[in-house]
């Protein structure tokens, strides 16, 4: 609502309001504007600090994802099938600092000496994707997105807009290191969260 009709209303209202004399329209207008300004100003600090607090998560500094050890190489069977591994790392959760907290999981698949890593989260709507019982493909339990064992969408009817999210992997000695990241769901490009 623009202020005009209100201002125009003010003197109008007075006429039918009481037995008293109405303030001169101009004075009434100024008083009304003054009331609105002063009232608005009075609410400025609480409203502003409230909104700021609500939006605070957006201001928090982003952290780059580092490579972290996820499993011993020997623990990843060389059978061509993805296996699930828990990702455990230090994590600052608002006011708490956690040491070695499970923060997610990855599928690791051994291909000879190299290892492929997939984030377990479905790029469609964020559910935890399962390996199908016959170990032939991935299926999402939520909306039945279907992926082949390399994580590529393998069904034209699959609701997932992109292949499962691959993660950077490095073999360091006898350990598999993964850059654990989550990605925004529901879009064709892979874009990291935070």
């Amino acid at each position, binding site marked *: *609502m*623009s202020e005009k*009709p209100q201002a125009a209303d*003010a003197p109008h*209202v*007075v006429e*039918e*309001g*009481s*037995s*008293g*004399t109405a*303030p001169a329209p101009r004075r*009434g*207008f100024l*008083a*009304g504007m*003054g*009331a*609105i*300004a*002063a*009232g608005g*100003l*009075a*609410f400025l*600090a*609480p*409203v*502003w*600090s*409230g*909104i*700021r*607090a*609500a939006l*605070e998560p957006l*201001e928090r500094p982003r952290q780059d994802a580092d490579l972290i050890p996820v499993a011993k190489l020997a623990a990843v069977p060389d059978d061509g099938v993805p296996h699930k591994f828990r990702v455990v790392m230090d994590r*600052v959760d*608002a*006011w*708490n*600092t*956690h*040491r070695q907290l499970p923060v997610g999981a990855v599928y690791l698949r051994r291909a000879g000496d190299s290892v492929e890593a997939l984030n377990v989260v479905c790029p469609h709507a964020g559910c935890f994707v399962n390996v199908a019982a016959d170990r032939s493909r991935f299926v999402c339990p939520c909306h039945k997105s279907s992926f082949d064992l390399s994580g590529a969408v393998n069904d034209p009817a699959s609701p997932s807009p992109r292949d499962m999210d691959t993660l950077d992997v490095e073999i360091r000695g006898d350990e598999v290191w993964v850059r654990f990241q989550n990605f925004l769901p529901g879009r064709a490009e892979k874009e990291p969260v935070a």
Partner: protein
Amino acid sequence: MRPVLDWLDDRTGYRRLLRAVLVEAIPGGAKWRYVWGSTLTFAVVVQFITGLALWASYSANAQGAWESVFYIQNDMAGGWLLRGIHHYMAHATMILLVLHLMQIVVAGAYRAPREVNFWFGLALLFIVLGLSLTGYLLPWDQQGYWATKVATSIASITPFVGPALQEALIGGADYGHLTLTRFFALHAGVLPGALIVLIAGHVFLFRRHGVTTGERPAGARDGGNPDGQFWPDQALRDAVACLAVMAAVLYLVIRTGGAPLGAPADASEPYAAARPEWYFMFLFQWLTYFPAETEILGAIVIPGLVVTLIALMPFAGRWRLGHRFNLGFMGTILAGVGLLTWLAYAQDRADPEFVAAQHRAQAAAERIVELARGPDGIPPSGALTLLRNDPLTQGPQLFADRCASCHSYDGHDGLGNELAEAQTAADLKGFASREWLTGLLDPEQIATPRYFGGTDFARGRMVRMVQSRIAGFDAAQRDDLAKVVKALSAEAALPQQAALDEADRSEIAEGTALLASESIGCTECHEWRGTVEQSLGPVLTGFGSREWLTGFVRDASHTRFYGDRNDRMPAFGPDEILSEAEIGLLVEWLRGEW
């Protein structure tokens, strides 16, 4: 725009509503003294806004409440401002309410037909008090915790239902998770809900009866002033008043850096500085005048009578004399409250123990910020863990409890209090530092209470050695002794001396050699780097180091230390007087490691 608004008005009738709100006739015109009701409403709305924003970041559980408030206060952009406004606006609400109440009574505005509205206002006062009380606990710091314990304990003396009431209120026999969830449900749900209903009823009745203009017949003109109406003249005054209230609150917030946050609540940690908010202080003080058994008089009977009398004011006020009585009664109550409040603060200020407790509380509050900001952050077990594992916090406490019956620390008991008993063993401030050792090896000082003066060792070998041999040292030997002190002190590797130790490396090397020399002669009696088969005095290798001191506190009568010549130093480890962790904390504190 117009057509849309017309449509909206047709469907909702909002214009009529708006008009009803804005066009309130004010006999005699707008006045500054009519602003109080609006400022109160404003204060409440601000509490709702800031309260909701705080709610969005607050966690009501015993390991997360303090931590989340710490986060709001210290890590969240503008969080301190948000909390500060909520905190001080609560104070402002109290003041405005009491002013409003006074105004009503003075103007006789409680008289017929406004009795019910007066009671609404009174009920509002209690809701606001309840909001303050419940809110005080939510940060779960020492102050709120202990002060609220007082309040809930008082609730438990209510006849018949007391204990059940208290248990239901705090969600069990003792404070914990459920206390917080319940207080939070009261603070953010039940009481605000009741507040809205009461305010709505209050404003509705107020509108029904109109403003009270004083003792003149209806319709008369106030000093010839024409009647006015709410919009815009009174609205402007109200808005300016609200702005002034906000400005005052902001001034307080900025001047004090926001609402205080003490150290996290700890049921095992005494907190002598526990006090309620200032507007409850009169009650706090009042209760000190009621000896055991009569507490119920002070806490329930008399306040109940006072409130009943206030509630009956509208009836008494029908007669001129009754109104006078009401005025006198209110004046007496306010004066009494003022006096009690003043007494409470005056007594606290004059009480050195309270002042010391306040300093300790302040120090703990600052310390926990340091710890929480440390590299390890706040663990999931809560910030209290940090304090419990902190040598600087625990060391002095343990010392006062376990060591100060014999030892002193810089002349006091570790916490800054005077010693209860005369000191009979060494003062341990700066133990193993150069300064401390210089004193020990000084013939003038070694037999004073600061060292061995109060012990069996006052006439022991060491004292005799210092007083005869060292007293006779020539200048060269004294120079050597200074190097010996540096070398011996370097054994301790005290953090505060790290720079000095580093700088004097060559002197320390000389001292290390001199210690075993015949001219200084320490190794006649002390083991030093494996130079003596049987040690008469304590082993000096690693003297004062963490390992040495831990072993010493654990068991001073071990042959490494005093052996069977041990005077009274208890065997803290073997006798399980202190746990390993506690010994560790004490040792770290004595060594200045934190």
